[in-house]
């Protein structure tokens, strides 16, 4: 299974999760885990997704999420899980 971490950071507003989840659904991505919290005064949502069957290339997916973030006035980024594993686990 190929996994990616999606993070949304910024000011809280209505429909963030709904819109992000919709975009993921449209691209055939399964959400494995989700958590949201207020960290250092910022709304922070972290999702672990299964991108194995994603319909589009990673590039395109990241771009779509960028666009969505811009619309919502938030930072939405998706990164391959390996970057976190390699930095924090031996």
């Amino acid at each position, binding site marked *: 299974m190929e996994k990616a971490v999606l*993070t949304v950071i910024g000011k809280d507003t209505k429909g963030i999760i709904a819109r992000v989840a919709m975009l993921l659904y449209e691209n055939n991505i399964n959400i494995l885990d989700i958590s949201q919290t207020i960290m250092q005064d910022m709304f*922070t949502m972290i999702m672990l997704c299964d991108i194995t069957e994603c319909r589009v290339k990673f590039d395109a997916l990241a771009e779509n999420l960028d666009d969505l973030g811009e619309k919502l006035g938030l930072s939405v980024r*998706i990164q391959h899980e390996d*970057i976190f594993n390699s*930095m*924090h*686990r031996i």
Partner: protein
Amino acid sequence: MINNHEIIETIKMISEENLDIRTITMGISLLDCVSDCCDTLCEKIYDKITRYAKNLVSTGENIEREYGIPIINKRISVTPVSIISHACRDADYIKIARALERAATQTGVNFIGGYSALVHKGYTQGDKRLIESIPQALAQTERVCSSVNIASTKAGINMDAAAQMGNVIKETAYLTKDKNSIGCAKLVVFANAVEDNPFMAGAFHGIGEGECVINVGVSGPGVVKSALESVRGMDFGTVAETVKKTAFKITRMGQLVAQEASKRLGVPFGIVDLSLAPTPEIGDSVAYILEEMGIEKCGAHGTTAALALLNDAVKKGGIMASSYVGGLSGAFIPVSEDAGMIEAAMCEALSIEKLEAMTCVCSVGLDMIAVPGDTKAATLSAIIADEAAIGVVNNKTTAVRIIPAYNHKAGDIIEFGGLLGRAPVMQVSKYGSDSFISRGGRIPAPMQSLKN
């Protein structure tokens, strides 16, 4: 499973503290391009580089996108040109430099290193001709970088080469005077040059290297500075521990990117260079790390000790994070490329003399330092000899990348733009070293060389 705190920490490092991969450098051997005809040589060089590095930039960009970590530069290093051009009966070195430039433009890399000669013990005819051509080559190209190794712990210091390099630097400054003598920013004079350095301008693909290799240079002074902010007032043991932990994390990024690049390009992974490489951006400065340790302004007394601790802790932290560590590995102190160094030089807290002392404990040497345009060639040669002596005696790499900025005097500021930044023109000693440099010959290798 990675926890949320760790995820946010990584993202903060990238988005706020300027964590990045400084460079993916593809080393390419050009030994099989040798020909006795210069045109054939140039053609072979161009063909081989563009064939091997065809996907280098796009692969770098894909990795950047997928992992969400910026990879600032994609570069190429090649076998020192003096070695592959020896057989040419009609060697036209500028033609070779232009072939390298064309290959760099075609592949989309911003720099190509290896217009180099290794003359630590003596010159061959080819070395001599290549070194003479450096000023023109750098003036007529934009992406070609040059380096000359003039000393080693095993061989001593080639003082003829040190003397010649003073003149070469002056001439390069003159020929690129319309662009603030920027040619000199692409020219490094080494002692104990390493064969797998991914950083420019001193990168070349050593003759002990394989056919093609991927080397990666990491960076992240901002991350170290930020980590040290959380241990203000605590003792040096804590400071060293904090730097080590941070360096470990930074290096893991480098290792990941190096492995991915190597896999996707089908090229063996060489080394990760554990370096703290600053940029002129605020918050990406090595000087600020030293100041965070408690030095009021970089260059004040205590700076050398602070840098020694930093340099050592970076290596200790990074060494376990990567399977192969190499290159220069340590903290860089290029003046024009470091916001804190620029400030310190402008308020005269930092002088060339202090920088020289700092080079005894950092990873390289006198780097990106502008001096008055009327500085004599012999004085530049003497600065080179001083640095080489530090490298040779201490068994480390040292380098000089100095810019005698044409028509500028001490106190002026010269702008290079981009990663090369801006350099305050620093005062050199007003006393001469002419008779010392004019002696020529070779300073014998020190006792440290007799280890067998």
